[in-house]
């Protein structure tokens, strides 16, 4: 077939990994909503509303990270359990188009989450245009980081049990350790160093500073950006280099 449509190939992933599952198993939508919102509600109650703004921003960042991480499980399932990826490897679709389409499908899957959080953000977090742009940029970078990591892990995993282990490990690193729903100053000092292992900590810190929830020096702000962007570029490069589309 001449002139294959990349748009069609991208849409195929969105159908397979978002529209068809949501259409046939609507309960999945409820599940996608619950994760980041549950923690937001808890933080809001515990802080008597004082940390609501930070927690909404945190939920936004976490939704981005979660949608990226969900990709790992989905890809591993399609590859190892259904052997679906093998069918696509042997087709004219490239690895890049496949992963890009799958990433888009995760965003669509979490779309209700984004809409609700956007409404909350507008209502409870007064952001200037520059701050809003900063927050969106941070989220996009975190998404790129997490999908690169997810794709890398999914191609390495050979069984769904292994992929669950990867998900648990990465979730701990990217969502449990970092202080996303509250400022890092809430963590006792020696433990703060552990939080800085995770790129999500830098992302959350930039978003919190941009919204005025915390104050950091320009040097620290710049360092946060350097670490976040550097880690993301490194992860993309590692994923490109190590990824296994056609198995060695």
């Amino acid at each position: 077939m001449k002139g294959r449509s990349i748009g069609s190939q991208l849409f195929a992933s969105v159908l397979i990994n978002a529209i068809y599952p949501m259409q046939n198993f609507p309960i999945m939508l409820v599940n996608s909503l619950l994760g980041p919102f549950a923690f937001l509600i808890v933080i809001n109650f515990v802080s008597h509303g004082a940390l609501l703004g930070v927690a909404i921003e945190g939920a936004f960042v976490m939704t981005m990270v979660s949608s990226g991480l969900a990709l790992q499980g989905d890809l591993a399932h399609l590859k190892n359990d259904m052997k679906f990826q093998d069918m696509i490897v042997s087709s004219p679709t490239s690895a890049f188009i496949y992963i890009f389409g799958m990433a888009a499908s995760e965003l669509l899957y979490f779309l209700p989450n984004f809409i609700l959080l956007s409404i909350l953000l507008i209502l409870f977090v007064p952001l200037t245009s520059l701050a809003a742009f900063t927050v969106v940029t941070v989220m996009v970078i975190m998404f790129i980081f997490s999908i690169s990591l997810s794709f890398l892990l999914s191609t390495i995993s050979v069984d769904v049990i292994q992929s669950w282990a990867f998900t648990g490990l990465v979730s701990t690193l990217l969502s449990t350790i970092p202080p996303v729903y509250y400022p890092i100053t809430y963590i006792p000092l020696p433990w703060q160093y552990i939080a800085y292992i995770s790129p999500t900590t830098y992302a959350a810190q930039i978003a919190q500073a941009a919204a005025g929830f915390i104050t950091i020096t320009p040097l620290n702000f710049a360092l946060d950006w350097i670490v976040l962007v550097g880690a993301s570029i490194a992860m993309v490069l590692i994923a490109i280099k190590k990824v296994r589309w056609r198995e060695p």
Partner: protein
Amino acid sequence: MQEQTGRLVCRDVGKVYSTGTVALSKVNIDIPTKGIFALIGRNGAGKTTLVRILATELMSSSGTALINGADVIKDPKKVREFIAVVPQESRLLMWTTPRQMIVAYLLYRGFSYVNAKNRAAEVLKTVNIGKYADVQSQHLSGGTKRKALIATVLASEASMLFLDEPTTGLDPISRAELWNLLNKLKKDHFIFLTTHYLEEAERLADQIGIIENGKLLNIGTLDELRAHVKYDFSLTIFDNKARIKPRAGRIVTGLDGNRQILTTQKEANRIAKELIRKGTRFSTSPVSLEQIFYFIVKRSINEETEEKDEW
């Protein structure tokens, strides 16, 4: 290597996995890309590894492979334009219907959404599962799921289909239905089929390859393979007490535990008359693919272990 259109050519294809396991060793194939080619072998013989290399899913460790002149190793993009694969143990996605699965697969192959929907409707009828087109796959029988998977790759523009053990686990009726379908498809597709159901290969294949322990032992039509066995007729005797001494040929224990006499057609006729006279139950037929497979594989094992060939 010279470009060869209309042929599948493998030269010394080998595969050693990172664990050190030798999965394929110097596989050589040169067959026309028309009809059905069946690769038969025991579990772990190397069938799936070879299919995955030819289907551009897996890199080989050595050798070269060309399909219709396109280099499988160096130019997988070109090969992917005209092949489609149903991998071993692949499943219809549980959260899709057959129609949705086909439409999505065709989109991956670059069809427009409208063309994909039209083509899906067409192929679902061809494969005779039109009434299940919109039933979620978790509610479908194993046979219908398999047909839907074959319909998925069939709907594409691919002229060459790799089907890795497509009938494994199916009941005899579903299997027979799939055989009928494959027989229809082979008119305008090349089908590379792997199976360990020898009857399937015997019924469907124009060419058969026998693989054992990563080595392609023989390749050819059923008659060509039959020529590898010294005797072309077999009698199976169901009465262990019956005393028969063939003038030509030999007595062996078959795969089912019954005594078998492998002999010439003339001698088989003579023994048959004698068995009828004695009232002994028996059956006679040309040597089957199962017997040929058993003979060729056994000979290979014996060569490796330096045991005497009992056939």
